[in-house]
């Protein structure tokens, strides 16, 4: 549970962890039923509509005005988004 919360970058209190753990068990045992019917020869459906090759031409379109881009940011400096110090190096 703690590992999942970490993967999802979400702090979770101990109390919540307990509640979730119990509920997850119930939910996962219910949803595990999918295994009953999904045989190996059945292809998965990832998209409800069978379309392929939807492309756009390589044309430059106007970008957003920078003031709009930065207007909603929690913190800005030098026209960039300011974030607290980063621990991990890039993946």
């Amino acid at each position, binding site marked *: 549970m703690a590992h999942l919360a970490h993967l*999802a970058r*979400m702090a979770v209190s101990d109390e919540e962890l307990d509640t979730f753990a119990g509920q997850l068990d119930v939910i996962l045992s219910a*949803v595990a039923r999918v*295994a009953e019917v999904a045989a190996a020869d059945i*292809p998965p459906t990832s998209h409800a509509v069978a379309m392929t090759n939807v492309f756009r031409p390589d044309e430059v379109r106007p970008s957003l005005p920078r003031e*709009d881009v930065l207007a909603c940011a*929690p913190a800005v400096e030098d026209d960039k988004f300011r974030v607290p110090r*980063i621990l991990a190096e890039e993946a």
Partner: protein
Amino acid sequence: MSDLIGLTAAETAEKVASGEVSAVEVAQAHLDRIAAVDGKLNAFLHVDTDGALEAAKAVDAHRASGDQLGPLAGVPLAMKDVVVTKGLPTTSGSKILQGWIPPYDATISKRVKDAGIVMLGKTNMDEFAMGSSTENSAYGPTANPWDLSKIPGGSSGGSSAAVAGFEAPLSIGTDTGGSIRQPAAVTGIVGHKPTYGAVSRYGLIAFSSSLDQAGPFGRTVLDAALLHEVIAGHDRCDSTSIPQPVAPVVAAAREGARGDLSGVRVGVVRELQGEGYQAGVLASFEAAVAKLRELGAQVVEVSCPHFEYALPAYYLIAPSECSSNLARFDSVRYGMRVGDDGVNSLEEVMSLTREAGFGPEVKRRIIIGTYALSSGYYDAYYGQAQKVRTLIVRDFTAAFDQADVLVSPTSPFVAFGLGERVDDPMAMYINDLCTLPASLAGTPAISVPCGLSDGLPVGLQIMAPALADDRCYRVAAAFEAATDRLVPPAEVLA
């Protein structure tokens, strides 16, 4: 109650076009209604009084200058807060987006504005559209206009309550697993989930991308059809948008209203009734099927054996996709930031922000989805769920060989009490039992009122093959024409 708010959208548009009333008068009447009753309903998260009056003025000016008005020009509309609206607060019912003013418009926002429809404001919803009762909103629950102690359905509960409560003749909802149809059913109005890809998703804050679909609410089938034609149609900004003409849903609604269903084959889905359904719901449903037969339809029973797996499949696919879609709420570019004290690292600030910004249901689903996608579990969960989807599509294909439309109750229950199920996720999830198959298959389905049980509305779900949305409207309109319109007791909001 002003006469103007009791009109259908079609009637309103006609009166505005003829000059009998001005769009400003219509907008003002609805704004007054909202001011009078929304304290009880809490259907709106944000009312845009100035914007609405301005849009209405523009419609009146167009009319005055002799311009041809669109079929819904001057008609007020309530927009679900999951739809991005430029310059208007958009929260998706979440604290994490409190105060966000989008710098762009969703395609449907643009289409609504271009059609001269007057947007009154943004409606309440379960946070990020996850829920069936609107109780998961970070901004308090919405009440049902039939009984303020009951839920208005969800996740589009603000939109259904606004229309059922005469705050707006039209609204827009989104449906991922039933979030238009179930609220329509439990508030006694019409709601349609279009074919996946019929309405652009550009600017809908994504919950589950392969399932999300926006659609119309109205008090009549024709009203819903008129709005459907405004918002549907190909959009180059959405890769999954279908590049085909919009199904002729308005014509189908008008044809259906003549009340003749002879030659139409209606399939009753054996697996979507019986145990677990309220007796009153089943009684209303059986009466509805009898009515369809009276209208000339040929009723057959069809079997869709894999529909029972729709619920588990859905509760793997939707959380998986949402765990990825909601990763962007990270306190970097917009939205809430918590714990930035100069000491905490970015990783800690992200975690604290997401802890504080998301409600329990959202967290629950993110955790489930993260689990279902994680290495070693993908095949057993997400992979299998995608296969179930194939089986459900096959069930539909076989059933549509025998029937032109399929019918079922929209929800196994009528509106339940606020607070009754919040602590039991599984009890909440089974609300979607009947609506999930069409969501997973991407096929269209409408909910139309079919009577009362214990004084609360019941919905009839009519499902059609992909791209044949017009069939839903035709059958729904015929049924509507043959039944009494449901109106909530006036004293509830008096």
